């Protein structure tokens, strides 16, 4: 009986490992397999599932990642343009040093939600979302569904507008 339970549990585990899967059902942020809580700039905690109901971009980055810093420039523009229309961003930094993270946030003039998840590739949120390259981003609609992965520039803007009904 015990071994059967272990067997069932291991099946559940095997399937749960692939919550972000292109072939599977659309991932949703309310799925416990994807939810996480990160520490914000002021020491506050931000949980992913609390953002349900908003059109937002979940963005993984790090201060040492050159392409991420470049992408921030674009995100600053989009954020300023669409924040009043209801667009949000949650950036999750995989930095090891809090000071490096905070410095980069200030330098890149980031005013949206910022979370810190130490541990690089092994950090909790990065593992849950199977992040294997930086930057990685997920565009999420009001239902909490992931509707775009790694969209950039025009493609990203077009989709943001569509989701906001603009």
């Amino acid at each position: 009986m015990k071994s059967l339970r272990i067997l069932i549990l291991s099946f559940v585990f095997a399937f749960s490992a692939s919550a972000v899967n292109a072939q599977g059902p659309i991932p949703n942020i309310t799925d416990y397999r994807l939810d996480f809580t990160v520490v914000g700039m002021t020491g506050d905690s931000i949980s992913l599932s609390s953002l349900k109901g908003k059109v937002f971009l979940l963005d993984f980055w790090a201060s040492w990642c050159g392409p991420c810093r470049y992408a921030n420039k674009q995100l600053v523009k989009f954020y300023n343009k669409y924040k009043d229309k209801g667009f949000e961003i949650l950036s999750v930094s995989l930095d090891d040093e809090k000071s490096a993270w905070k410095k980069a946030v200030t330098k890149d003039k980031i005013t949206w939600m910022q979370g810190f998840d130490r541990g690089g590739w092994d950090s909790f949120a990065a593992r849950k979302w199977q992040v294997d390259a930086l930057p990685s981003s997920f565009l999420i609609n009001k239902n909490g569904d992931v509707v775009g992965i790694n969209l950039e520039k025009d493609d990203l803007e077009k989709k943001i507008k569509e989701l906001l009904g603009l």
Partner: protein
Amino acid sequence: MKKIIAVVVVAFVTVALQAQFSKATLQASGLTCSMCSKAVKVALEKVPFVQEVKVNIKSQEYTIVFKENNNADFDALKKAVEDAGFSVASLKVTGNFSDVSVQKDKHLQLDGKNFHFINSSDKVLSGEQTLTIVDKDFLSAKDYKKYSAATKMECIKTGKAGNCCVKDGMHSEERVYHVII
């Protein structure tokens, strides 16, 4: 009798000429930010003699810890990085040496591998020592050019023993790692 003593002494010296490599530090480079991809770390972790790979963002290096009593194959590390879509910009290997005498521009067998010390003047290595591999594709093209000019021996170009050491019993196809210390 003298001959036997000589043979015994030689055998003893050969055994004592030991080095065991325990870890390496590697830098990868490519067209894109190499540290921004998990691919290099994952590829290195799959190399059989690798115990653990740590990412050091500050120095932009991977620290690779080898399994105990490994027979570390440094070419396998290079291949892993290249298969992940990047190239090796620097590979330093650290081992424990017990009184190994090295001579400049001479081949030496250590831990089952052949080494060619490019720059070191005659000295005895003991304790923990780090060697930098300067073979082609183990460092930038510019640095390789610099080190390959430091020896007249052909093996720096091929990484193989070639004709240089046949009389010492080395097969021409044997791998020779070129190192600096």
